[in-house]
């Protein structure tokens, strides 16, 4: 079920929100043991919200397209009164005393929150295997990972265990799992969506966005999430737009760039072929597709693995075992309390990134690593801006979302670099703060989804959605669902 489709059914009173929510809980009960996408179910709260929505409709009122629609949030979104773990033992018992802005926005929209979704601990990972509460499995093949870090969100949407979901994306954590699970995932421009009430990983890169079954739903969800928030000093103070307004407009004459650095050796041939076919499709629809170059692409992953851990090591310093979360039961003094609570509370990947981040920020290494990475960040951003401006005058850039389809569980957990390289095509977009969208563009012979990525100019989400919608309308990839 999709947002738009369900919204119409609810409006026509063909079905009630309570019935829909009950149906989803039934499905979750039968499939979640296999997939492990939900960490927390909010049955009581959801049915109450659904009832209220039905009551509104009975009176002839509605709050908009999300009213009465069952959604789920990645467990990184702070939800007042509802457990928020960030898939970490250190927050295992944390029940926030307040709502983050996004959680409050969905409440206001009338949406029904079914529960909180699994993820890599503190959003650090690309396979959802670094969750403290067990891995998520890919609905297309249970032997395979769903991608990460928003793996629970991607799997839940693909398996229709919620109508739509939210994710967060620091280096590809919305787009890569969207690609691997065959759904639409959008990372908006940095600053579009508030970070208030989003558990921080790397503050200069983190951005929340929708994960949905099609492009229309992506726009409808973004309408709820986007907007200025005085509680986040990096939130952009702009007039709100209707992101669904550009859907259906022709893409004739639009310029789409294909950066040659994204079609390198090591990329899976089936992925390459699917994206090449998509490029042809865009041409058939009247867009102008031309090769371009983003010469600093290969420096994005190393720069990211300085900047992101550095910011993470600072952000994660707050977990001290004193004010909330896990506390060790046996500490003689305060130092021991800090050290034992943190050591037992954080998983191995988070620990690795905290130590790496502390190292690159420490005296004597700061210039060589952190400052260097920030300068490289300037070059990467410049590459994109040139392609959009005088260099190529492109309206969007087309790339694969991930270099391969989903890989098997356990395949990359021992080698951090192998894991990190699955975000090779998504990381540059975060470093440059641009909007990026992943949408289905094919399947491998083994039956696993393949996604393409569209990268847009700062604040040009509308154009991305317009292009994505046009492609979606002329293909049928988004209509396929896994057999479970």
């Amino acid at each position, binding site marked *: 079920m999709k947002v738009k489709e369900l919204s119409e059914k609810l409006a026509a009173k063909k079905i009630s929100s309570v019935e829909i929510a009950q149906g989803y809980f039934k499905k979750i009960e039968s499939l979640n043991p296999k997939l492990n996408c939900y960490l927390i179910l909010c049955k009581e709260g959801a049915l109450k919200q659904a009832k209220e929505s039905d009551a509104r409709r009975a009176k002839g009122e509605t709050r908009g397209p999300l009213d009465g629609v069952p959604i789920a949030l990645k467990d990184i979104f702070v939800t007042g009164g509802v457990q928020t773990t960030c898939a970490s033992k250190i927050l295992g018992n944390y029940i926030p005393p307040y709502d983050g802005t996004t959680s409050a926005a969905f409440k206001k929209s009338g949406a029904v929150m079914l529960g909180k979704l699994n993820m890599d601990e503190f959003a650090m990972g690309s396979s959802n295997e670094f969750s403290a509460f067990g891995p998520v499995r890919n609905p297309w093949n249970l032997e395979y990972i769903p991608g990460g870090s928003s793996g629970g969100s991607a799997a839940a949407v693909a398996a229709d265990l919620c109508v739509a979901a939210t994710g967060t994306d620091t280096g590809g954590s919305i787009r890569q799992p969207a690609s691997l699970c065959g759904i639409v995932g959008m990372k908006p421009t940095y600053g579009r969506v508030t970070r208030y009430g989003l558990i921080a990983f790397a503050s200069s890169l983190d951005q929340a966005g929708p994960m949905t079954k099609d492009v229309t739903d992506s726009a409808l969800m973004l309408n709820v999430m986007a907007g200025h928030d005085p509680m986040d000093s990096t939130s952009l*103070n702009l007039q709100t737009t209707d992101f669904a307004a550009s859907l259906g407009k022709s893409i004739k004459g639009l310029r789409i760039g294909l950066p040659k650095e994204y079609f390198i050796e090591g990329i899976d041939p089936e992925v390459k072929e699917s994206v090449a076919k998509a490029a042809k499709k865009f041409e058939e629809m009247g867009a102008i597709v031309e090769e371009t170059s983003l010469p600093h692409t290969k420096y994005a992953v190393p720069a990211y693995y*300085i900047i992101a851990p550095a910011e993470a090591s600072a952000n994660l310093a707050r977990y001290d075992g004193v004010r909330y979360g896990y506390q060790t039961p046996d500490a003689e003094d305060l130092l021991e309390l800090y050290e034992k609570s943190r050591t037992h509370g954080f998983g191995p990947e988070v620990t690795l990134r905290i130590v790496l981040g502390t190292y690159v920020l420490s005296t004597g290494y700061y210039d060589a690593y952190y400052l260097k990475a920030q300068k490289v960040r*300037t070059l990467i951003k410049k590459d994109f801006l040139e392609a959009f401006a005088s260099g190529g005058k492109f309206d969007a850039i087309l790339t694969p979302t991930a270099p391969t389809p989903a890989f098997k569980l356990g395949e990359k957990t021992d080698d951090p670099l192998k894991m990190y390289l699955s975000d090779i095509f998504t990381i540059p977009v975060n470093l440059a*703060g641009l909007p990026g969208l992943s949408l289905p563009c094919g399947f491998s012979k083994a039956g696993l989804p393949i996604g393409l990525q569209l990268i847009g100019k700062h604040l040009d989400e509308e154009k991305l959605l317009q292009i994505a919608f046009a492609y979606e309308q002329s293909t049928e990839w988004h209509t396929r669902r896994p057999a479970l």
Partner: protein
Amino acid sequence: MREVLEKMIHLARLRLPDEERNRLTKKTEHILEYIERLKELNTDTIEPTSHAIEVVNAFREDAVKPFSNPKKLVEIAPKSFENLFEVPKVINEG
């Protein structure tokens, strides 16, 4: 490297067993080796970017806003006493 990392582990307020420290050292070395490729780039004249989108100070009124449930903030602590967070004794008696 291992010695430097020991210091970092302490600075990050972690206490890792030997085996874990070995694992961490190996993985960190592996990642740093990969990061070395940034040295190929001459960035002497390049300005650093800390945020991709330029933002100016977002000033707002310095006004008190009530928080709905301040008691809850202390109650969610693993150990609390009245309106205080409880920790092991910090100051030793002389």
